[in-house]
């Protein structure tokens, strides 16, 4: 019994210490005097790696999810004779929920795990130590560009996901199932509000972007520098990010739409 309590205590203390280290890393890498000339090329490279290379999976997933929404929405709404509202349903589900959440989950799997593995391997092969000994702060050179790239690219990817999803929905509902295009788009335009729906969706994606890339970078930076350590860190990135995204989504949704 005492043993179990001890283990629990050790585990809790370990997690608190890790949270402290993660916060310290965030401050050390972001609270620095700006050096745009030095940072910009590094940021562009990371935006390409983290953002542009995630485009294909985001485009394909967005398209299919939009198509499925269109189809499912139609089969349910047609029973009530209100299939004209498919556009509204597709747009609202995507903009409010599916685009921020699914993009963040895909982003954690595609980009987050890659960032963790990359930084973890840099640590294992002494490249991070090497930067330090050359007199270059790895926080600024390695950590900061990746954090910024994540913050910037996830909201953009989310918007792309929503747009492609809505297009997928219209493909199925209008072009395949034959709903009148005018009512599909008009219903959507009438019901989707810029502030409550679009802006709240973007706020969600900003929060998710921050959390996912923070977890990914920290897990890599804090990984035990062995093959097993890096494999565990990569798994933790995907698991923690997914849980954090889903948990935060509920909290944010409650704050944004709870009063309706």
């Amino acid at each position, binding site marked *: 019994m005492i043993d179990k309590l001890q283990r629990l205590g050790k585990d809790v203390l370990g997690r608190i210490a890790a949270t402290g280290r993660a916060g310290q890393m965030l401050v050390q890498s972001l609270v620095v005097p700006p050096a745009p000339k030095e940072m910009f090329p590094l940021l562009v490279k990371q935006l390409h790696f983290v953002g542009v290379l995630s485009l294909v999976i985001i485009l394909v997933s967005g398209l299919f999810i939009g198509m499925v929404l269109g189809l499912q929405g139609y089969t349910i709404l047609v029973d009530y004779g209100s299939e004209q509202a498919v556009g509204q349903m597709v747009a609202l589900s995507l903009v409010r929920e599916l685009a921020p959440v699914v993009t963040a989950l895909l982003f954690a799997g595609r980009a987050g795990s890659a960032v963790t593995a990359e930084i973890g391997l840099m640590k294992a092969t002494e490249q991070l130590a*090497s930067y330090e000994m*050359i*007199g270059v*702060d790895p926080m600024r050179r390695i950590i900061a560009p990746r954090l910024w790239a994540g913050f910037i690219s996830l909201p953009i990817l989310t918007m792309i996901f929503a747009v492609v999803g809505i297009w997928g929905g219209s493909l199925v509902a209008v072009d395949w199932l034959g709903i009148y295009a005018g009512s599909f788009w008009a219903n959507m335009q009438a019901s989707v509000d810029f502030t409550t729906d679009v802006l709240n969706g973007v706020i969600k994606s900003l929060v998710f972007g921050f959390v996912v890339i923070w977890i990914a970078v920290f897990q890599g930076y804090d990984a035990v520098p062995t093959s097993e350590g890096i494999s565990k860190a990569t798994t933790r990135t995907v698991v923690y990010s997914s849980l954090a995204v889903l948990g935060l989504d509920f909290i944010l949704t409650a704050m944004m739409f709870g009063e309706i």
Partner: protein
Amino acid sequence: MTSDSKSHIEVRNLCFSRSGRSIFEDVSLSIEPGKITAIMGPSGTGKTTLLKLIGGQLRPDSGQVLVDDFNVHALNRKWLFHLRARMGMLFQSGALFTDMTVFENVAFPLRVHTDLDEPLIRDLVLLKLNAVGLRGAAELMPSELSGGMARRAALARAIALDPDILMYDEPFAGQDPIAMGVLIKLIRKLNQALGHTSIIVSHDINETLSIADFVYLISDGRVLAQGTPDELIKIEDPRVLQFLNGEADGPVPFHFPAPSLSAQLLGGSRDR
């Protein structure tokens, strides 16, 4: 290079422990400027840790590391990075940046710490690569190099800024005899030509003794013996003899601490 610019390193009463295990207990060393000082000892005695303590990557529990009278661990981050720009370190794995070519790896410290023009950087990098015999490999990626070549490329990067202090972490480990011979020659030649203070951490006895001016032998977290290579081989201490002659039997135990074999096998305890 005048003797004034050579750096003197002083380690005073250094204590360091990791995960509750003591690595160093009251270690004091003096590393003479412009000389090659070797730090030797069995694997796991914390030789690499000592280099990290000198470079300020780890903090000691107590004691001081003074580089030219500056306490490394009392410096703030900015000044520590300034100091490190005067240190070169050759890591055991080479630690080349895998996303850059060999040329870019060597050019990296120059680009970060100097405002030199691109043609001058190019010339300097080619000269450094020529010194380690890898001018022809400038455009290769680190993954295309053999282990020995990677270490030589890393050496070119370590000397890019003509540092006052050069630290070698196990430079001979895992090298074939030719690569080892090349490295020994290079380390000695570089020390003579540039006159920097060199610290070699190694357990390769013959190779290290052949180039070192002074040797510290560390075991169990303490300095076991010190002296010039000639003095060292005359020491009669059985622990020193065991290490220098590579004997399995002696005061340094072969077994990691454990209960006796018979007690563990026959004692009835099923604990592994």
